[in-house]
Each structure stands twice: as structure tokens, then as C-alpha cells.
């Protein structure tokens, strides 16, 4: 493998020093959103300079991007991202060796290219997984080139330095895993070995700037600080609710009751319309979508909680979050009332018989008590 730093490669590809500085600034901006690594470094080195230094000293890290049970929405979102410098950098210039949706090659050629990349960069590449992995019925529900998704991910992860699961499907199983989960869909996290470094970037789709930001951060500084669900804290440290622009209305108890009432026009809180913002960790409210133009809650739609595990089974999208996930079946309620009433009748009958015949009952009870002791 030729030893060439990222900066050298960029220069070879015709990127000027000025553009290079811009790229460094963009990366520093995205990956240093909240704290690490900027928090530590702000005292000594300017974050942009640190990114510059890393680009100038680190080698290019290739990315192999696999898609399983997905809609390619995360890839689509990425290609339509409005942060061209960073996305261009990550997608075209820097990293992608193999990507099923973006690849010009098809069929055996594409498979060969993947095998070649895995061999060439063994132990060094990053594996990005999009989509869930079906495990039911021997994994027949998703096969590529005649091989099951489980087989492919295990093969590709073996030589990977780290795995990045993008989107809710790869991170937590997503829609394919929704009840009744006919394909036995599972997340990358649950299929792969526990000791493999893995970063989850959930969302439906994942925010493109977060995906590229995390890839860039991994390339430059290694695995970022993660939470218990392996999400980068820099992007998933706060809930939508924490950073929501409608939060003051929540505090004031001003709720929109329908999509077309006075509250909706005034931009009140969407809690009553089923907003899942309070339990949803993502950067939508800060990074937003379409070049920071807007995000669902800003546009008047409640958060669906698409970056949370099992969001598809987390109660109705338009049902207030305080409501229980389901209500007991009428038959179950009737049965419970019936059993309760029957027990009541039974107890009453026993009471009455004890009342009528108190003498014979007393010694039996005493005997029972002795036995219990």
C-alpha cells in the first residue's frame, strides 16, 4: 500500500491549499459540534489546525459500504446533502471503495472490486453498513450474489478496522425489525462480534452531515466518544426536545391540538400530536436538514423518534407520548372482571358457610395454622 497522506492525495487530485483549508474548517465544524475532541483542544490548539494536521499526517482510509434490508434512503440523503465540500470529500475524494447504489459497476465486476478492496486494505478499511440483516429461514430474505446478508457482513467485518452502522435499520433493526419481524431482521450491533469497534448513526435516514462527520472524525481521530447505544455523543448527546425551537411553548403548556388550528399557525408545541422529541436523541434540531433550512418539528410535524430503537413499534406516531403503548383487549378486561367477580362470590360463599357453621371450621383452621408454623 503506497504511503500517502490525505493531504498529499487531495493535492494530487487538484485540491488547492485554499480549498483544503476550507475542508478542514468544515470538518472541524461538524465533528466538533459539542465537545470532544474540541473541548480538550480548545485550550491549546485551534480545532481547524488540528484537523489540518491530521489530514497532513494521516493516511487515506478506504470505506466499503454494504447495503442489506434497506431502502437506500441513507445513501440517497447523503448524495442530496447540501454540504458539498464535506460530502464530496468523504464520498468521492477520500474514501468510498465500494458502494452498491453509487457504484457504476454491476454484477460480478462490482463483487470483484469489493473483494479486491477488502484484500488490499485488509485490517485498515471502514465498513459502513446500511440496512438490517435478516436471520430467519437461513437468511434467504436478503441475498447478494447468492450469498446471505449475514454471511456478507461477517466476511466484510473481519478485515474492517471499524464498523459504522448508518440509519435505524443497521443501528437497531429499523422498519424491517418492526413487529412481527417476518425476516428475523437484526441490527449490525447484534450480528457482529462484541469486540469489533462499532459506531451507530441511527435515523431514518441518518442526517447526512452526521454520517460524513462521523466518518471524517473516525478517519482523523479514531472512534468518537459513544453512549450506551454506541451513538456518538457529539451528535446524539441531546434529545430533539432539549434543543427544540418550540420548547418554550411546551414549558408554557401551549399545545397544538390539530394540524390546522390556531396553535399550529402560531408554532406551538406538538406534544399532543404525538411528538416523540422528549425521548429521541438526534441532532435534527441543531444541524437540521437541507443545509440547515428546517427539520420536521420546525415544519410543523411531530418528531417520529426515527433515531430511537424500535421506533416503529413505539406507539402511534400521532398518539401523545404519555399514552400507553397499547390498551388491553376488551376480552381480557371482561375476563379479568369476571375472574374478580367469581373470586368475590367464592369468598362470600366461604364467609357465609363459616358464619353458618362456625364450630367445625375453628379446629380445622387451628390445625392449618400449626402446620404453617
Amino acid at each position, binding site marked *: 500500500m503506497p504511503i500517502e497522506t490525505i493531504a498529499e492525495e487531495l493535492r494530487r487530485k487538484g485540491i488547492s491549499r485554499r480549498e483544503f483549508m476550507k475542508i478542514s474548517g468544515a470538518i472541524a465544524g461538524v465533528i466538533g459540534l459539542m465537545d470532544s475532541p474540541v473541548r480538550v483542544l480548545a485550550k491549546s490548539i485551534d480545532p481547524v489546525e488540528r484537523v489540518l494536521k491530521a489530514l497532513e499526517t494521516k493516511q487515506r482510509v478506504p470505506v466499503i459500504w454494504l447495503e442489506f434490508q434497506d431502502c437506500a434512503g441513507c445513501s440517497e440523503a447523503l448524495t442530496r446533502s447540501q454540504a458539498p465540500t464535506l460530502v464530496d470529500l468523504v464520498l468521492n475524494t477520500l474514501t468510498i471503495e465500494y458502494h452498491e447504489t453509487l457504484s457504476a459497476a454491476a454484477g460480478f465486476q462490482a463483487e470483484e472490486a469489493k473483494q479486491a478492496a477488502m484484500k488490499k486494505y485488509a485490517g485498515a478499511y471502514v465498513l459502513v453498513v446500511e440496512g438490517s440483516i435478516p436471520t430467519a429461514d437461513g437468511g434467504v430474505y436478503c441475498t447478494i450474489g447468492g450469498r446471505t446478508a449475514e454471511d456478507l457482513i461477517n466476511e466484510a467485518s473481519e478485515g474492517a478496522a471499524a464498523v459504522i452502522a448508518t440509519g435505524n435499520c443497521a443501528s437497531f433493526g429499523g422498519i424491517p425489525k418492526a413487529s412481527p419481524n417476518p425476516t428475523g431482521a437484526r441490527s449490525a450491533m447484534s450480528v457482529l462480534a462484541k469486540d469489533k469497534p462499532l459506531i451507530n448513526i441511527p435515523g431514518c435516514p441518518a442526517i447526512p452531515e452526521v454520517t460524513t462527520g462521523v466518518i471524517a472524525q473516525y478517519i482523523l481521530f479514531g472512534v468518537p466518544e459513544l453512549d450506551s447505544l454506541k451513538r456518538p455523543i457529539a451528535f446524539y448527546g441531546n434529545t430533539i426536545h432539549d434543543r427544540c425551537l418550540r420548547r418554550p411553548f411546551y414549558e408554557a403548556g401551549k399545545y397544538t391540538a390539530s394540524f390546522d388550528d390556531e396553535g399550529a399557525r402560531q408554532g406551538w408545541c406538538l406534544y399532543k400530536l404525538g411528538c416523540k422529541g422528549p425521548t429521541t436523541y438526534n441532532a435534527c434540531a441543531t444541524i437540521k436538514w437541507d443545509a440547515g433550512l428546517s427539520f420536521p418539528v420546525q415544519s410543523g410535524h411531530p418528531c417520529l423518534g426515527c433515531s430511537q*430503537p424500535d421506533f416503529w413499534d413505539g406507539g402511534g406516531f400521532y398518539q401523545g407520548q404519555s399514552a400507553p403503548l397499547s390498551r388491553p383487549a376488551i376480552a381480557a378486561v371482561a375476563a379479568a372482571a369476571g375472574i374478580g367477580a367469581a373470586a368475590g362470590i367464592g369468598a362470600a360463599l366461604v364467609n357465609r358457610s363459616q358464619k353458618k357453621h362456625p364450630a367445625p371450621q375453628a379446629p380445622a383452621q387451628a390445625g392449618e395454622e400449626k402446620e404453617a408454623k
Partner: protein
Amino acid sequence: MNWNNALEFVRGPLFNAALIIFIGGMAYRLVRVLLLGWRSDKVPGKGSKLGGVILSYLKGLVIWPFIPWVQNTFMRNPLIYLAGGLFHLSLFIVLLLGTAHMLVWKSLLGFGWPTLPLPIVDWMAAAGIAAMIALAINRLIHPVLKLLTGAAEWLNLLFVFLPMVSGYILTHHLFFPYEMGFTIHMAVVDALLIWIPFSRIAHFMFYFFSRTIHGAQFGKRAATP
């Protein structure tokens, strides 16, 4: 296992189970009371049973609590009148007129109703919590109440106190991440639902039961309940 899974469990299966136990338990209690037996009543009716029931409810729910000088309820025991009354009023407002709780009723019953603004509900919840603390202290120091208070009474207080405090914490996003606070709130609510039928908290239903019977009996005899 993370807080998300825990939350799904306490909002889903555990809540359903608790609700079913609650309904079954209350049915059991009601049947037990009904089957204690009715004394045959051969008195010829002088007045209206329905009128007696209505008067009974008016007195129990409106006149005595809100117009203290009618029965001198305040002067008889100011602490019980204020703290006990405030506590019950707080429960009523928070559980029925708070937006979050109305949404629970809506999901169970299929219809909703207008709710009070959050700040009002919020202050009522705080007042209810303060009232509960006052009542608990009263139980600790009152010489007669001390004799009457056993483990069941303390558990009753605890089982109601925990949902109220955790709900307040949840609304204000204090101390815990939201899903953790939500999980704790739902878990203690589920525990309360299971506890109610087997405790004296069941009076929330038997109160109406006994007022109806009393009112009808008094009404029939044209007496004032």
C-alpha cells in the same frame, strides 16, 4: 437492556397487566361488598331515592368541601381540611385535566376533552405533593393517628406519593434523562394500579358506591343525609 426497552415494557405489557389486575381486583372488592348482604327494607318510601342520591353527592363533593362553614369542616380540623382537600383536588386536576393524562384517557376510552394550561396543573401538582408531606408529618406526630397508622397506611402514602413526585420530576425534566424519568413514573404508576384494589385507596370507587346507597336510603325516608 437500556432505558428505551424498560420504558417500552412499563408502558406496554406491564401497564396492561397492571390495568387488568386493577380491574379484576376492583370487581372482586365490589362483589365482596355487595354479597355481604342486604337487609330487607320494608319501610314504605316517603321521599325520592334519586333526590336523596343527588343531595348526597352535592353535600359530599361540593357543599362540605367548598363551603366550610355549613358543617364547620375547617374549624373541626384545619390541617385535614386544607391538606386533605388540596391533595384530593390536586389529584383530580392532575389526573383528569392535565394534558398528558388526558391523552392516556383518550387512548383508553377513545375520546378526549379540553385540559387546563400546564402552569395551573403544575402548581396544583406541587400543592398536592406538599399536602401529602404535611399529611405524612401529621401521621408521625398526631397522638391518635400514630396509634391508627400501620404499615398499610404508610404504603398507601408511598404508593401515591411516588407517582406524584416522579411525574413532577418528569414534567420538569429534573435529575434524569427523560426516558429514565418516564420509565420510573410508569413503573410506580403500574405498582399503584396493582396496589389499589387491595388497599384502602379503593375508596376512590367505594366512596361513590356508599354515597349512592346512603343517599338512596336517606332519600327514601325523606331524611337529610
